[in-house]
């Protein structure tokens, strides 16, 4: 009794020969399906890689950020809040953060200006992100002059360039001294952009949040947990949305598969009659036809995934850059960190092979149960 595998191999032989009879059509079908799977897989791999990296990098984000809101808009935080917070039980430390945005019309980009809490650049100098340096063509020692809040040009000397390795975080960063920051933006001495708190016992962060809501009705605490979950949701959301969109194209393929399986030409129907006449069982015919579908969808899955892996992790997801960049002039130059999540692989395989095969059950059955004696007439 030959092994089941041997018998399946013979059926695959015939399926491949049958597909090979019209190579143009079937290779075209495979190519397009592979492309769809590749785009789907690229989105998944890229989002997963960014989600992983965001989760690792932002693990160091402040435990609690307290933001003051005025008429629903982000407003400056008076220094008096600092003293009131220090009294709160559970808060082990608090400091004011000074950061803001600046639109540079010269290259049409937004910069994030920030005052580092420790070892800030000397007054009159600044440190700039690698992306910024690249797009403005600045070197250490050059002068960067920006239009200050009072309309006068405010020049600072570039003292340092942040490492390109951290561009994902710092591509548009401008670090400067507190004195320069306040002069540039005209922010009074006793005001901060927002507050950053350390919590004595990380488990208590939720109770501290409740306290902050009570004590400061006009401000909003943001926990590190929410920061991380935002990025989970951001990339999860994109995966989900793009996935659903691309499912449309997989569905189109499913209809194509259904049509191909049921819309057999008279020639193909006669051939199946001949196969049955010379001794193939209905079950053999059905398995052979399923193999025809499996060959295309399985190959599309494998090729699509490998192409996506090369595209995202070796070509830096170059095809996605325009979508991701949007209208941003400053775009971080970073190589996505390869990370493959088994669940995504299983889901990708599922969505590629399952609908394709499902669509062909009834058409294949109808074709396979034709009468063999029709061949004699």
């Amino acid at each position, binding site marked *: 009794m030959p092994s089941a595998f041997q018998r399946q191999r013979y059926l695959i032989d015939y399926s491949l020969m049958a597909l090979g009879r019209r190579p143009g059509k079937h290779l075209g079908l495979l190519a397009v399906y592979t492309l769809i799977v590749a785009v789907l897989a690229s989105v*998944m791999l890229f989002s997963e890689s960014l989600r992983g990296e965001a989760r690792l990098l932002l693990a160091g984000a402040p435990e609690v950020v307290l933001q003051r809101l005025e008429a629903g808009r982000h407003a400056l935080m008076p220094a008096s809040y600092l003293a009131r917070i220090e009294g709160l039980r559970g808060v082990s430390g608090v400091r004011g953060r000074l950061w803001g945005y600046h639109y540079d019309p010269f290259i049409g980009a937004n910069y994030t200006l920030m005052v580092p809490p420790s070892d800030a650049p000397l007054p009159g100098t600044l440190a700039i992100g690698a992306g910024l340096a690249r797009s403005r063509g600045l070197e250490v020692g050059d002068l960067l002059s920006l239009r200050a809040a009072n309309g006068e040009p405010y020049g600072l000397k570039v003292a340092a360039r942040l490492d390109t390795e951290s561009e994902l975080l710092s591509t548009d960063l401008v670090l400067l001294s507190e004195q320069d920051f306040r002069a540039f933006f005209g922010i009074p001495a006793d005001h901060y952009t927002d507050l950053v708190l350390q919590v004595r016992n990380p488990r208590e962060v939720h109770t501290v949040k409740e306290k902050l809501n009570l004590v400061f009705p006009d401000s909003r605490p943001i926990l590190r947990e929410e920061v991380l*979950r935002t990025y*989970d949701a951001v990339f*999860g*959301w994109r*995966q*989900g*949305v793009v*996935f*659903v969109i691309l*499912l449309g194209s997989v569905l189109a393929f499913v209809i194509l598969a259904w049509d191909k399986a049921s819309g057999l030409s008279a020639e193909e129907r006669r051939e199946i009659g001949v196969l049955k006449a010379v001794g193939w069982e*209905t*079950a053999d015919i*059905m398995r052979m036809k399923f193999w025809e579908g499996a060959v295309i969808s399985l190959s599309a899955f494998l090729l699509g995934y490998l192409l996506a892996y090369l595209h995202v992790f070796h070509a830096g997801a170059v095809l996605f850059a325009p979508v991701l960049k949007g209208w941003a002039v400053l775009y971080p130059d970073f190589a996505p960190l390869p990370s493959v*999540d*088994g*669940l*995504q692989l*299983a*889901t*990708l395989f*599922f*969505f590629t092979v*399952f*609908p394709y*095969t*499902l669509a062909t*059950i*009834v058409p294949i*059955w109808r074709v*396979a*149960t034709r009468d063999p004696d029709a061949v004699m007439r």
Partner: protein
Amino acid sequence: MPVHPAILALIGVSLTVSALLALAGAFAIGVVRHWDLTSGSERQLRLERLTYLIATLVAFAFVAELISLLLLVYTAETLSDQFVGAMCATGVLNANPWGWPALFLKIVVFFSGAAWLTLNRVDTRSRDYPLVRPKYALLLGLVPLVWMETGVLLRFLLNLDPAVIVSCCGALFSPAGQGVAAEVSGIAPAWGLALLYAAALPTLAAAWWARRGAGAGLPLAGLALLHYVLALVAVVSVIALYVYEHPHHHCPFCVLKAGHHFIGYALYVPLFAATAWALASGVIAPWRTRPGLRALVDAETRRLAGRSLMALLLFHAVAAWAMLSSGLRMAGVWW
């Protein structure tokens, strides 16, 4: 409900499987009502053709069920970090009351699917379709079961709310808690292991005997079911502890984590496969008495018993290896 592709897949599968089974059931009713092998009429030919479609639909649904069982556990495992308080799949399954029923129903559907396909295989190998009526009666019984499973799974997935604080496996699988999981975790490891091997030896013997002799399907199935339950108990009460190298961590799901080199799958897949094959051999055993079927049923039982034996040996090899190679040394404390 998080818009995660895996959850979309799970929902897609369960709806498809319900539709396929309903279709198969409808055809089955038509076939059973008009089935008359002796007549050469065209209607009989059409009914015979329908049996192929029904068999294909059910086989496809069964494979889909198998994939969705693995996908459900793997999804719960991977999404556990999005649920506050969940460390593994247990936490996610605790997220609402339909989690565990969904898993149990999926397991029941998996086993009954395996049994039906074996019944179908024996029926199509004999010369006069002897089991047409019983096999389609079982199928009609399977349809509501699958619909219920789909309903429960949908309620579980649609009501998954990441903001809900869930209790993790530490709370559920701990001797201090209450409920079945707690009692099982409370069993002394020595007893857990003793019960496992007390069930394993007769099951292996039954499988060995069924592989050589004839008509040992029913005892094998009964023993395998008992062994299946005791194996799960053993995992919770002793094997998991060795995998985690932690004397109080009883969770049966954390073994599926990548950190433990996916040893969970190496344990559960052979166990489930062995039980499915053994149960299938039990389902076909009663038909030995039919005249034309004795040889066929015996041959099929031998084949299934052989596979069940291999899978059982694999499961016990992995379990023994996990315990022996673990850093945990509890000699003198537990035994």
